[in-house]
């Protein structure tokens, strides 16, 4: 992950993918609070430009302009849970998701994981966690052949499968105060 130090303080580089906009570039990231907001409502960034591009190719080119933009920013992660590289943070994160699920269940409520994350994003903010760094498995929904993270291709039960070796890391930041120098990085990509 790219880090930048300004006045002895370290920031994490993040990449935010959006549809290309003819009306001009954004001056701040767009809060994601729809179904793709896995960790609840917040500002989502990829830590790798590669995955920001894949996200654009797969999900941001199906509108009338047919292109996507990538913005870069520096993110203050001092008060973020780093569930990717910090073992304590990871187990803390997991344990508290389980706690919340159990609390819903013990009170007779059925809840999806997405709902739990929605619920938790409000609690994280209240207790002073400003964001979460996490990773999931890379995906290649359109089976594009040029994806560098799918280097090992193998067949199982007559199906082609892929071995992914790169963590697909994202960061969700719950408010704009932790995001600096947001600017257009790559324009009109397709």
């Amino acid at each position, binding site marked *: 992950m790219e880090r930048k130090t300004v006045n002895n303080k370290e920031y994490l580089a993040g990449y935010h993918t959006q549809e290309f906009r003819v009306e001009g570039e954004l001056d701040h990231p767009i809060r994601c*609070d729809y179904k793709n907001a896995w960790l609840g409502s917040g500002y989502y960034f990829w830590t790798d430009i590669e995955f920001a591009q894949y996200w654009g190719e797969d999900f941001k080119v199906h509108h009338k302009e047919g292109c996507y933009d990538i913005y870069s920013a520096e993110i203050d992660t001092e008060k973020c849970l780093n569930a990717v590289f910090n073992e304590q*943070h990871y187990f803390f994160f997991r344990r508290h998701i389980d*706690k919340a699920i159990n*609390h819903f269940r013990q009170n007779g409520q059925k809840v999806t994981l997405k*709902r739990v994350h929605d619920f938790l994003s409000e*609690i994280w903010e209240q*207790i002073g966690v400003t964001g979460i760094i996490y990773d999931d498995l890379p995906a290649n929904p359109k089976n594009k052949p040029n994806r560098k993270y799918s280097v090992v291709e193998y067949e199982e039960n007559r199906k082609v499968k892929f071995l992914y070796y790169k963590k697909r890391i994202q960061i969700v930041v719950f408010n704009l105060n932790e995001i600096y120098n947001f600017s257009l990085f790559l324009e009109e990509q397709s």
Partner: protein
Amino acid sequence: MLDLKELERKFDEILYSFTREDLENWLRFAEEREQRERLEKFLEGNLPLNIVSVKISQRNFVGDISIQGLDNYNPDYAEAA
């Protein structure tokens, strides 16, 4: 630097303050908010019609639902959806 012990204390305090009724209300609110957001995205042209589920209650029965009907969106209608 996060103080995980202190975070845990605060987290538990907030989580366990939610009663059964609070959780029910929160889930209902979240469901309504999501429906509203889907409808808004549809109206902005960002979602195909088949993704938008529209529920019709007796109180708000309006006959055939049409795109024109959705364009005449108002808060009462959203409440029913």
